[in-house]
């Protein structure tokens, strides 16, 4: 009897294992037949996200996207993938969405485990400076034809240089924007502070900025004038631009070979911010990141935000009960230099040429296809890097919103995010601001920052 039971148990286990094995095979087969699979199903298949595969004529690839406009929305990206599959049914695409809080950790984990996706969507600071420099990305030089280069250079030559390192292109860009700040228009109006801004050019001087802060405080239009957030690296482009613009400092040298945040101009700016915080004209919040500050702005608690762009405007549109008015950062000469944002695609080198080719096909469809490229840019809420696409928002519902930010595009400054040690310096930057706002001498804090940041440049 015991032997019979043991035999039955063994048979059950054997069949169970065989069944499990069969299921895996079935799943794999399904993945390689995109034509028979709904895109939504593909996108939700988490278990294939570790890497695609090639079987016969079909190729399965994976894409990870950071929340760049609607590229952070599963349904929108699935719709895009469905359009791609109409043209290329032989390639199935599995989607995984990343966020800026944990995304880098997930990618680093995938790199160390050897389970990176085929395609990743983000900016040159990650794709080129970080993963490209570490030799993890595929050289996309073949996509960068002379025609493409000329088209992108016509918009901004800095985009072309930002996407390459040592002659190899690790990013194929789709869109760009300038990061701005924004004010609560009604609060400024109530405080009589509109006189300090140039509404047409959306610029103001450092002196205007200080006067506006005083007017806002005297009027008590909002609980706080503005929050200099330094609780983490999220949205740090805003605090960098604020510091750099106040007295026309630069974040790095022109060659992007060293950080210059301890220059006299930057130290003067940090000292001014320290004074403004001590005088209660601004609040420094070492526990807040940009998302927290944006929420306070949207709530009407703060009269301005230092982290604004078209994407944020769309995201917080439902929360605001006032007019968020996009502005350039205040500068001593009234000529701001705004931080740029460039987003596009890179391919992780997984060693499978068929998957690399399939990934390139997908990227070209999204960025270059005549019927898709403009729609892809619209998904981001930003502006095309290809001059040939023109104004992709013309005659659309969002044309007015886009025009607001188009006005600020001429102030696009140097794209210094490709400086070595970029990832490391981001942590150092918000820690430096925390030191400054907890009373450390601005020069000392900035010197320490620069010394540590430069030490990470390889």
């Amino acid at each position, binding site marked *: 009897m015991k032997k019979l039971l043991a035999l039955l148990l063994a048979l059950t286990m054997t069949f169970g294992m065989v069944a499990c094995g069969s299921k895996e095979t079935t799943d794999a087969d399904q993945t390689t037949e995109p034509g028979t699979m709904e895109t939504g199903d593909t996108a939700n298949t988490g278990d294939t996200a570790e890497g695609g595969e090639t079987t016969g004529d079909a190729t399965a690839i994976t894409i990870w996207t950071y929340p760049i406009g609607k590229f952070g929305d599963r349904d929108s990206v699935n719709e895009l993938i469905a359009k791609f599959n109409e043209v290329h049914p032989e390639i199935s695409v599995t989607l995984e969405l990343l966020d800026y809080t944990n995304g*880098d*950790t997930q990618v*680093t*984990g995938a*790199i*160390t485990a050897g389970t990176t996706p085929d395609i990743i969507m983000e900016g040159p600071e990650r794709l080129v400076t970080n*993963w490209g420099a*570490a*030799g*993890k990305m595929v050289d996309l030089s073949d996509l960068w034809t002379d025609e493409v280069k000329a088209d992108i250079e016509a918009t901004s030559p800095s985009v072309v240089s930002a996407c390459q390192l040592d002659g190899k292109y690790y990013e194929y860009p789709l869109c760009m924007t300038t990061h701005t700040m924004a004010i609560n228009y009604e609060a400024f109006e109530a405080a009589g502070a509109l006189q300090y801004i140039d509404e047409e050019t959306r610029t103001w001087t450092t002196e205007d900025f200080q006067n506006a802060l005083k007017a806002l405080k005297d009027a008590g239009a909002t*609980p*706080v004038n503005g929050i200099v957030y*330094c*609780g*983490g690296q999220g949205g740090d482009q805003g605090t960098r631009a604020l510091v750099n613009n106040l007295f026309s400092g630069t974040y790095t040298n022109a060659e992007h070979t060293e950080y210059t945040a301890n220059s006299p101009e930057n130290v003067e700016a940090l000292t001014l911010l320290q004074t403004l915080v001590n005088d209660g004209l601004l*609040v*420094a*919040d*070492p*526990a*807040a*990141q940009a998302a927290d500050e944006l929420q*306070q702005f949207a*709530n009407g*608690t703060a009269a301005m935000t230092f982290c604004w762009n078209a994407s944020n405007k769309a995201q917080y549109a439902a929360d605001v009960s006032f007019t968020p008015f996009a502005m350039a950062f205040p500068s001593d000469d009234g000529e701001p230099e705004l931080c740029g944002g460039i987003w596009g695609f890179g391919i992780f080198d997984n060693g499978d040429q068929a998957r690399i080719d399939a990934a390139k096909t997908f990227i070209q469809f999204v960025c270059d296809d005549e019927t898709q490229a403009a729609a892809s840019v619209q998904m981001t809420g930003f502006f095309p890097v290809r001059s040939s696409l023109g104004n992709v928002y013309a005659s659309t519902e969002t044309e007015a919103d886009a025009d607001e930010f188009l006005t600020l595009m001429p102030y696009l400054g140097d794209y210094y995010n490709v400086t070595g040690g970029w*990832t*490391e310096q*981001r*942590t150092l930057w*918000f*820690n430096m601001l*925390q*030191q400054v*706002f*907890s009373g*450390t001498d601005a020069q000392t804090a900035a010197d320490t920052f620069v010394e540590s940041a430069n030490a*990470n440049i390889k």
Partner: protein
Amino acid sequence: MTQRSNAAASKQPPKLSVHQRSRVLARKETLSAYLFLLPSLIFFLGFVVAPMVMCLVYSFFDMGLNMDEATFVGLGNYFEMFQDAIFRKGFLNTVIIVVVAVPTVTAFSLWVSSAIYQMKAFTRSFYRCVFYLPVVTGTVAVTVVWKWMFNPYNGLINQIFDSVGFNWLGNPKTALACIIMILFTTSIGQPIVLYVAALGNVDHSLVEAAQVDGATKFQVFWKVKWPQIMPTTLYILVITTINSFQCFALIQLLTSGGPNHATDTIMYYIFDMAYKYHRFGYANAMGVILAIIIAIFSAVQFKLAKSET
């Protein structure tokens, strides 16, 4: 026929003595036991022992994203660690968290359990449920609520204390205390459930005997109940110590180690070094040191608890 029966008899296994049979049986049982253990042993070796060994090995290397470019640095990472001011700050903060949180959690749990373990079953379950809720609620959800409560401009805490604008999590003097307080609320659930069960299992005949002999309430607790719940106390001390040492999510979600490293802990610094600076060797070295510290703390607790009993 006779030949056949002789052949069959010669094929039969030789008869074993009782001693031999018991040895065979014991060997079979041992084999069965190992076979039953095998699946969990494989997982234990693969997911606990192997990573520990890898952690130790990697701690002697300077390695970034490219593992194949790793260079052997011997004890270099360890020497660097003790010269690293942020590591020292993180170490100090970690010790403060452990030294404050562990006794507080243990004492408070014991106090609450003493009050509720004799209540009616429904009331007891209600209290256990209330105190256990923060444990089963996701850390992110708990953190979001606390972040809202500590909000300087419209948070509940500032409304209560009439201190609108005070930044509890942004002030170096209060940030760590806030972290410890939140850690406290999320840590007491399990000890309370364990203590309620342990106190319910205390031998009542001994308690009654002590009371008959004229022992005071404190004496009954200290001389009769305490020794009987000591194994539970030891377990609670060890798990609370380990949890406190490994406090990470709260800091990551609330303060990112700030302001000015006021809430940096070893665990958070390990994450920072590994995933922001990509210094995996250095992070592994810190992991080894953290494991050693936890082991020392746990050993001391075992030793003290043993001497108590």
